[in-house]
């Protein structure tokens, strides 16, 4: 088998064996050598003693979609590996390495015809003082993939620097033992060489990218209530905000978190919180308040399987409905969705800019897959979107906080501004902010809040629109990268297809989507929900020309490029 554009590796082990660490080191070494890569961690709900798997895809080109199947599967042990059976597909071409003392390989491995070999990782590790089987596995994988052992030492030394030279030496020795043990193993798939001259490279998760995007956009206050899989955003922000003169407050619950950021933003500080579906549900009432009082805030929802507690550690796109329709009353607001790990940075930064410019709340719909995946990517470009609010200054005479400005955005007095005193209110109010139940004021302010969003020019960032062809794959969020790969494979089969993926979900952009879909004869809607939420959203707000098919599936298993590719090629 010749050089491949990408190789996929899975490393599994029961909780605490260090499978995830092994995967991270491999990704770091590959990234340092100039390849691109994606690391997905998958685990059960247990904090310790459960099961964990590192799912890794290394590639010559940027890659963010999950592999159809794995070329190499290493089971440091198989104790709980059966729980991943459906997630880690292997085939007749795959190599599976297990430890003779690690239990029986899951039945799915036996059935698929993969080549299974045994390497006594545990025993080999024992021969090294303080050696760990996962480092032996790392050495094995390194050699099979064509790395030198030294290439793995670099990330290991970096990570273990604070544990002292003995820990580093133990890991190095264990890696070398694994490296030697791989000498006799046959694995003839290898990565094509990396492309030279890559720009500055970053290795980060979608959640980290989200947090950096927030700060770049001007966020200087965050309220935090921990929830899987959004917590990393808040944990990255805690020290980082302090560095830039901002602050983070841990809230007692999500109700407090959303109200804290409304209070901070009312005081003039761009503010954000991050949560997942259950938390967003609790925040919805106050998002209506932010809409009515015209206080900009950003809420990132890293979607997980739902409803209710659902599957906290797995991905789904099922919060689209609540983000778009959850608010009671007529409450125009912004909903955006990043499309890749790197785009989490851009979209959150843009959302912050838009919220501040339009004095409206913005919901950013990330998901567990993208949020917790780590990717080696090119450094996202700097963009000029920095949140700037139209503030009222030098107020002489009566101040109307909610004046009916032509573009709907009325200057906002920040507390401390003399003459600007007003009471922000969830009650229907008049232009001067005083409560009213009058029909004319109610209508005028509803119009104002609608028109300021509908009249804004969102520019080309509203969506990804790529390629040509009368077949369109219409998708959103993290599936954008997967659909792109599927379209690229279809091109190899001679099928031309277009990719259309809105980044801006609210306010809707019917004219722009109509232009993007011009000439389309077939539209394949792709989404990861059970209830076809995206398709229903499209039907409610847009005209879809030609024939429409929907490929949808709930979580927890990510939709693969192979599945979308099949849906394209089978539609004749």
């Amino acid at each position: 088998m010749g050089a491949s554009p990408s190789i996929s590796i899975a490393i599994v082990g029961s909780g605490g064996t260090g499978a995830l660490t092994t995967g991270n080191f491999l990704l770091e070494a590959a990234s340092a050598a100039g390849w691109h890569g994606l690391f997905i961690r998958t685990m059960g709900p247990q904090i310790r003693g459960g099961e964990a798997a590192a799912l890794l895809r290394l590639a010559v080109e940027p890659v963010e979609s999950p592999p159809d199947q794995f070329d190499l599967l290493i089971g440091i042990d198989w104790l709980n590996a059966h729980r991943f059976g459906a997630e880690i597909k292997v085939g007749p071409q795959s190599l599976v390495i297990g430890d003779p003392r690690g239990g029986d390989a899951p039945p799915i491995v036996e059935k698929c015809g993969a080549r299974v070999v045994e390497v006594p990782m545990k025993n080999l590790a024992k021969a090294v003082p303080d050696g760990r089987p996962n480092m032996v596995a790392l050495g094995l994988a390194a050699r099979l993939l064509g790395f030198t052992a030294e290439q793995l030492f670099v990330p290991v030394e970096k990570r273990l620097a604070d544990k002292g030279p003995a820990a580093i030496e133990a890991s190095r020795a264990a890696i070398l033992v694994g490296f030697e043990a791989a000498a006799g193993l046959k694995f003839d798939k290898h990565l094509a060489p990396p492309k030279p001259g890559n720009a500055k490279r970053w290795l980060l998760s979608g959640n980290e990218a989200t947090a950096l995007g927030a700060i770049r956009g001007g966020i200087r206050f965050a309220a935090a209530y921990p929830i899987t899989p959004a917590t990393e955003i808040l944990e990255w922000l805690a020290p980082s905000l302090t560095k830039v003169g901002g602050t983070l407050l841990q809230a007692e619950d999500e109700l407090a978190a959303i109200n804290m950021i409304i209070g901070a933003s009312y005081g003039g500080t761009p503010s954000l919180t991050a949560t997942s579906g259950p938390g967003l549900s609790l925040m919805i009432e106050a998002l209506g308040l932010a809409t009515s009082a015209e206080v900009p805030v950003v809420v990132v929802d890293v979607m997980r399987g739902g409803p209710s507690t659902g599957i906290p550690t797995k991905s789904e796109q099922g919060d689209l409905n609540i983000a778009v329709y959850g608010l009671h009353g007529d409450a125009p607001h912004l909903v955006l969705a990043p499309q890749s790990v790197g785009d989490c940075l851009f979209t959150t930064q843009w959302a912050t800019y838009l919220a501040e410019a339009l004095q409206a709340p913005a919901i950013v719909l990330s998901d567990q897959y993208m949020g917790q995946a780590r990717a080696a990517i090119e450094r996202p470009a700097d963009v000029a979107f920095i949140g700037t609010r139209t503030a009222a200054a030098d107020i002489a005479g009566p101040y109307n906080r909610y004046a009916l400005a032509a573009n709907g955005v009325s200057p906002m007095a920040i507390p401390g501004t003399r003459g600007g005193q007003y009471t922000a209110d969830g009650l229907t109010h008049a232009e001067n902010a005083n409560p009213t139940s009058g029909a004319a004021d109610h209508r005028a302010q509803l119009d104002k809040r609608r028109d300021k969003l509908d009249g804004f020019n969102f520019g080309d960032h509203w969506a990804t629109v790529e390629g040509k062809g009368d077949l369109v794959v219409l998708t959103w969020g993290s599936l954008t990268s997967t659909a792109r790969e599927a379209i690229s494979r279809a091109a190899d089969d001679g099928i031309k297809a277009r990719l259309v993926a809105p980044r801006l979900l609210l306010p809707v952009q019917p004219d722009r989507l109509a232009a993007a879909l011009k000439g389309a004869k077939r539209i394949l809607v792709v989404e990861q929900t059970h209830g076809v939420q995206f398709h229903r959203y499209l039907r409610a707000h847009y005209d879809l020309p030609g024939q429409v098919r929907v490929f949808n599936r709930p979580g927890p298993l990510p939709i693969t490029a192979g599945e979308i590719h099949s849906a394209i090629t089978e539609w004749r």
Partner: protein
Amino acid sequence: MSTVDTRLAYKPADYKSDVKPIWCPGCGDYHVLMSFTRAFAQLGLPPENIVVVSGIGCSSRIPAYTNCYGFHGVHGRSLALAAGLKVTRPDLTVVVASGDGDGYSIGGNHFLHACRRNIDMTYVVMDNHIYGMTKGQPSPTTEPEFDTALSPGGTRLRPFHPLVVALASGANFIARCFSGDVNETAAVLVEAIQHPGFSFIEILSPCVTFRPDEKAWKDLVHAAPVGATNDPGKAARRIMTDDGFNTGILYRGNRAPYQPAVEATNIDLSELEKDFEL
């Protein structure tokens, strides 16, 4: 008593807006509004540097009746909103207004954590032992035998004791006032605003519409026989055993308020990127 300079640049009227209150004639909250404006004038605070934050209910209408900045938010969440405001704008004076339903029922959890967090703000609860805006349902402080349409024959539940909860949760200043005594309430407000950390004032404020029996409160209230203590143990004994009509400052703690540094820095944001660079 307060030692505030009384050569005032501001008069109470400077803190009053021209919005007409929705309160019933005779409502205790009118007096609370008077205490607010007197206290602000005594403190000589520019109205634009005060923010009055509230939730939902009759008492929570107070921000718009002042000439300060205000936020009339959703039901029960005023303390959280105020916390976000104060930590990012420590230069502002933040006063939170609530009622017994808003503050002790739907907002109960935030009350605990605001006391514990001890951010420098003043929390005023106008307690009338009833949900007035929704026309007379029992609140957490309603007496067990009080008959309402929602609780025929009474709730038969033990009333919530806000002062004890505040003390146990870490409030740094605890007082009880009677709305009808405007001068004393204003004086306590002045001290509460000046005292560092989270100050809690329970104001007995009668609802003459749904609790006409509360008109008797003016005869039941009496000034606390001894001054404030800074000993939480003594304060606990005192507020757990008094008759509920003992007014004045009951506890004045000395915990340092929570206030993170929020000074703007000029670091290059690219420094934050170093974590990610390969």
